[in-house]
């Protein structure tokens, strides 16, 4: 009889305790798995979002900090110069303006109006109803708009309807009149959050909303590198062309995000992963030790029958592997469910795009999960193994029988 078979028989005999221990490992293992998914999830998801946007470089003004950055002046000239570079395939200018629309109950609803030189489909807006905005400056229509799904749902908007947009002018003591804009379509924006309302329009549309004033500013210039050109090469070319601007590749943005914005989640993931591993070790070790102490007579009898120390120790190791293995396997689907719930909670944070996920599956997380649980199973079995290895057969049998 092999030690694995002996362990299997023991586990079968003590079904209730084995099942409960495996359930405990499954729940704690699920938390461990989730923390491993969290450890890189947000960064991986953010990088994926940036890559899906269709542009690999972002150009902003070097003046100001990220929260209050000054727009790029004379942006059309800047973008034209960048577009002429051989490393560049296409350029889009983006301008954001706060505005209000009349809500269903008559109150004002805050929206962000995004002016773009590109059609929605080219800046990661997916049209779900109606039609897209014209690309470039092809449109003669004064104010066509794509309405984000959140706003369309909140105000029951349909393509073809008119949206009255009124621009907010920060710091000014006057309110601009509302401008009627035709809703060309309803769209999902890749970067829209669940609690924000967004409207995409052309640069001309934005000018109309702002009361006809146009200062040719852009908050952001998006650049797509030409095929087979490394974004880092394009970054250097743009930086050489306009040293007064800040140029970031998607990798740079993700790197900054990883160092600053994501630090909290990375650290909580490390802390909780460590705690769950220690917790699993303590509990499996305790259960195995108590269980071994209870079966000392049985183990001494097995030894007396000629089963060697090594096989008994291996049996205990197998028991640990079975408990942790069963629990660890069950932890994967359970962890998936818990991760979905935790992801829903964290996505309620303001400003988090709906398409962004905090928990992202990566094969690396699965490998690490297996490795950590295997190590835990091994370490947890060490003390009971040592206990049985030095067990005196005769005195244990006499004590157990007489007792």
């Amino acid at each position, binding site marked *: 009889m092999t030690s694995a078979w002996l362990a299997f028989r023991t586990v079968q005999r003590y079904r*209730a305790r084995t099942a409960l221990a495996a359930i405990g490992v499954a*729940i704690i293992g699920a*938390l461990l798995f989730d923390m491993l998914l969290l450890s890189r999830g947000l960064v991986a998801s953010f990088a994926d979002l940036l890559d899906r946007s269709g542009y690999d470089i972002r150009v902003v003004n070097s003046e100001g900090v990220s929260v209050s950055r000054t727009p790029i002046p004379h942006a059309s000239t800047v973008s034209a110069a960048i577009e002429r570079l051989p490393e560049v395939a296409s350029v889009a200018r983006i301008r954001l303006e706060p505005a209000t629309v009349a809500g269903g109950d008559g109150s004002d609803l805050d929206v962000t109006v995004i002016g773009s030189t590109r059609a929605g489909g080219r800046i990661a807006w997916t049209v779900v109803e109606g039609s897209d905005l014209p690309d470039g400056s092809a449109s003669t229509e004064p104010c066509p708009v794509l309405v984000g799904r959140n706003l369309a749902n909140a105000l029951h908007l349909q393509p073809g309807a008119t949206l009255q947009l009124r621009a907010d002018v*920060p710091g000014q003591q006057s309110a601009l009149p509302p401008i009627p804009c035709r809703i060309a379509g309803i769209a999902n924006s890749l970067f829209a959050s669940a609690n924000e309302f967004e409207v995409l329009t052309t640069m001309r549309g934005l000018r109309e909303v702002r009361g006809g004033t146009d200062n040719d500013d852009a908050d952001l210039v998006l650049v797509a590198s030409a095929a087979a050109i490394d974004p880092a090469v394009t970054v250097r070319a743009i930086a050489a062309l306009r040293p007064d601007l800040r140029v970031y590749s998607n990798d740079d943005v993700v790197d900054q995000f990883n160092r600053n*914005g994501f630090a909290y989640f990375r650290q909580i993931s490390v802390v*909780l992963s460590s705690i769950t591993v220690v917790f699993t070790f303590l509990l499996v070790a305790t259960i195995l030790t108590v269980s071994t102490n209870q079966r000392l007579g049985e183990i001494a009898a097995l030894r007396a029958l000629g089963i060697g120390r090594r096989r008994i120790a291996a049996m205990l190791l197998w028991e640990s592997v079975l408990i942790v293995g069963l629990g660890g396997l069950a932890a994967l689907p359970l962890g998936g469910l818990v991760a979905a719930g935790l992801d829903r909670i964290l996505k309620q*944070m303001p400003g988090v795009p709906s398409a962004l996920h905090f928990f992202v599956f990566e094969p690396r997380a699965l490998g690490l999960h297996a490795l950590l649980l295997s190590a835990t199973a091994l370490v947890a079995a060490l003390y009971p193994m040592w206990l049985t290895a030095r067990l005196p057969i005769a005195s244990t049998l006499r004590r157990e029988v007489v007792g």
Partner: protein
Amino acid sequence: MTIATLRRTLLVLLISVLGAAATPIRAQPPGAQASPAPVLLSRQLAARAHVVVGDVVTLATDPTGAAGRSFRVVGIYEPTPDPMRFTAQRLEARLHLPDLIDLTADPRDAGSTDKVDSINVRLVNPMESDRFTAELRARMPGLDAGSTSRPRENDPFQVLDRFHLAISLVTVAGSTAFLLALMIIRAEERRETVGAMRLLGISRRSLLVEVAIEGLLVAAVGALFGALLAYGAESLVNRIFQSRYDTTLVFVRVTRSIALRSFLLAVPLGVAAGIAASWTLLRRTILSLVGR
């Protein structure tokens, strides 16, 4: 309405200067200017720029230091911890508003000498903040006003609170399963003792009460130990995170209410696990308990 504080940090100024690796704050020999205006520097900035109280420094909006002005450092301050910005380096300086305007105003824009980012208002009656903000918004379109005392909508810390609560519930569920497994092992261990006690005439009810009291004591001691462990780890965790982010922000605080909540959760769970595990034993017949 009184203007209590007009605050504008020099983040734009300082970070752009520091980021450009130009001299952000240049210490000058004392006496370079007749009477430099006073400035307070954050501890982090003073350390980074190797500046001490009494030094005269140059602040400029331009990375090259052009059109800079001299200031005398009259104090180093610890920035108020801000959980929304705990990962940011607090490279900040505080000047008198006229000095700041003098430093940053655009001579081509007459209006730039009369601009502030925000105005803090202390109301005579704080209960009237809603009425006040509504009236202000109506009278001055384009201005945004809001109470500083009321929690904001979509507060990220409420979301984090819910996240931590969800994690705690998962942990409690896992611990309960382990506890139940341990109690079952323990109950099995005492099978013959329980059989003997039943033979002596002790009722199931008395044995269950005994198990419940034992569970209560074990759970209470466990919960107390857990609270003490958390209390002991509190300062260690805070020290690690405070050192990592160079802040005085408190990251972990074991309050009485948190300890009480853990206690109230752990004790009934411990008692229930003990009773559930023992019940599997007590429902058996006396003969099966003593192995007959």
